């Protein structure tokens, strides 16, 4: 048996390696900071494993190419950052509608607009969930370390195939550019799901009839199963249904509920010191690192602080957050934006605990001390 390898890598490098390990064999991209390393490494690594890399003419085209490639039956990825992410939203909505499994990396930088290309932010949290027009379900995963840039890229690939849905790995410049030690398991031992393909006679194939979870089987382009990957409103047979309100309603509900109703299979959280915690920090991404440090320091000072980290941030782990709110008095949500994830946390807490935002913008990460200060302040006010 091959042994695990220890390596020192940048987060973006670990993400690219994770994709290779997960069986991604197609990457389409467009240059943008601070996600560039992912594309450059993929351009080198993919042909080595028989895969394909293409740099398209723009951000829209690169997600378009990834969608086309995914439909031929291979695992695909695209990576970008803020301004590029905005451009991708058109095709992200298309991928959600057509139900194309793919992984899109967003290494967040400061916005709005061009903002600050080399400084971190967490300003795309709501955009990742709700950015494209209309209603649909989507999965968003938030890594906090170089190891997780590897592990969660693999998880993202797995989830995208399981639910026939685009999955976003919402990283940030800190996690993308920092170097850390990581453990690389032997790639042949890494297992990721592969989409369910249809069986039975091709004439009976219904490309948009969900299984018990709401996920339909998907046929490879070029197989005997002919179908329309249809961006217009469509019935289970994939044919146009742009004047049928009942069909449209059923489709939109299924697209949303195949994610929202299957949280048990999707949700992933880390919980520490919650048993007696009166003040709980809910943090994700790079901010979760300083948040955990702050909780440890507060504990040393005798403050009963707890730590809750959603790893899959969308769909919201509302059941788990609700339990936190049952015992905690105050929940603090530190994030590098004007207060975005604080909203679903407040909704999940449902008035059972006070939810306060600790917001920081402008390109500097939130330090442990800043969070500790907030914990002390809350503890004092009782």
């Amino acid at each position, binding site marked *: 048996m091959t042994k695990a390898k220890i390596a020192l890598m940048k987060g973006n490098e670990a993400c690219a390696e994770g994709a290779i390990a997960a069986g991604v064999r197609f990457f389409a991209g467009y240059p943008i900071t601070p996600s560039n390393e992912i594309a450059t490494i993929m351009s080198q690594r993919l042909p080595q494993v028989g895969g394909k890399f293409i740099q398209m003419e723009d951000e829209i085209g690169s997600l378009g190419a990834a969608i086309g490639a995914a439909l031929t039956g291979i695992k695909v990825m695209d990576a970008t950052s803020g301004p590029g992410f905005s451009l991708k939203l058109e095709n992200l909505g298309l991928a959600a509608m057509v139900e194309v499994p793919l992984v899109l990396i967003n290494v967040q930088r400061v916005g709005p607009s061009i903002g600050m290309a080399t400084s971190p932010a967490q300003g795309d949290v709501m955009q990742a969930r709700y950015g494209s027009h209309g209603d649909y379900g989507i999965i968003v995963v938030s890594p906090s370390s170089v190891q997780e840039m590897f592990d969660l890229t693999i998880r993202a690939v797995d989830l995208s195939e399981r639910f026939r849905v685009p999955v976003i790995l919402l990283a940030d410049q800190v996690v993308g550019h920092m170097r850390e030690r990581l453990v690389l398991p032997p790639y042949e031992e890494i297992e990721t799901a592969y989409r369910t393909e249809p069986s039975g006679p091709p004439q009976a194939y219904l490309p948009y009839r969900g299984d018990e979870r709401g996920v339909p089987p998907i046929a490879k382009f*070029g197989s005997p199963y002919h179908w329309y990957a249809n961006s217009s409103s469509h019935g289970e047979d994939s044919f146009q249904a742009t004047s049928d309100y009942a069909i449209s309603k059923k489709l939109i509900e299924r697209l949303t509920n195949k994610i929202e109703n299957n949280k048990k299979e999707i949700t992933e959280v880390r919980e520490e010191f919650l048993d007696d915690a009166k003040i709980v920090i809910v943090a994700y991404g790079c901010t979760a690192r300083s948040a955990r440090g702050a909780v440890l320091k507060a504990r040393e000072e005798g403050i009963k602080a707890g730590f809750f980290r959603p790893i899959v941030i969308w769909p919201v782990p509302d059941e788990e957050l609700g339990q936190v709110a049952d015992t905690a008095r105050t929940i603090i949500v530190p994030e590098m934006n004007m207060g975005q994830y604080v909203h679903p946390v407040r909704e999940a807490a449902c008035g059972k605990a006070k939810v306060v935002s600790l917001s920081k913008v402008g390109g500097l990460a939130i330090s442990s001390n800043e969070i500790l200060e907030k914990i002390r302040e809350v503890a004092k006010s009782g």
Partner: protein
Amino acid sequence: MWCPGCGNGVVAMSMCRAIERLGLDMDKVIHVAGIGCAAVAHWYTTFTALQTAHGRALASATGIKFANPDLTVVVTMGDGDAAAIGGNHLIHACRRNIDVTAIVYNNFNYGMTGGQVGPTTPLGSFASSAPYGNAEPPFDICRLAEAAGATYVARGAVYYVKELISLIERGIRHKGFSLIDAVTPCVTVFGRRNKLGTPGDMFKAQRKFTVSVEKARDMSPEELEGKLIRGVLVEKDAPEFTEEYAKIIAQAQGRGE
């Protein structure tokens, strides 16, 4: 779906006839469409199809062909789809010389949305968003494709249906990026607004405003003014993208030349 008198059905039929003549495996033909009147052609066929967002057909077609070069990828787009919102994808597909066949249904306006002015609307023509006449000169999509590096460029017109079938057939057979500009009348909006007569009048008018590439050779620039040249305009051999990339894979895996 198409209005009575529309020429789009002739273009779609020509595509089907060309594919039939080539004897292709129907499982391996993938039809990619953008959005608009042209991009509903896939509703009438039984090929596996992808309907993309407006203008993005060539980007996704590139992904399909690159991921699986064994597939025959045929793209249908309108003139606005191809040369306005999708213009960037068009020129880069030409430059990349990927073996995809693009058929542009060129009806000189945005038909589906009510006849707005488009990138091929002639100067001075009327459109719903050009009520005083179009103030912008049009693109010649064939010259654009040629300049961008397409290795097969042809123009057909629905009045000359046998020629159109042959042009598409030759385009699909061609190794590399092929573009066929198919001139087709939009009777309901463009025709009515510009008083171009009945569907029959609009089909017959193609005898006047188009001229074969053979005839055009003996005509002066003055005589060619305002005429669209039909036939094969470019046909040349050049390295095809997916084949070039196969060499890169071989090199990266240490099996290089």
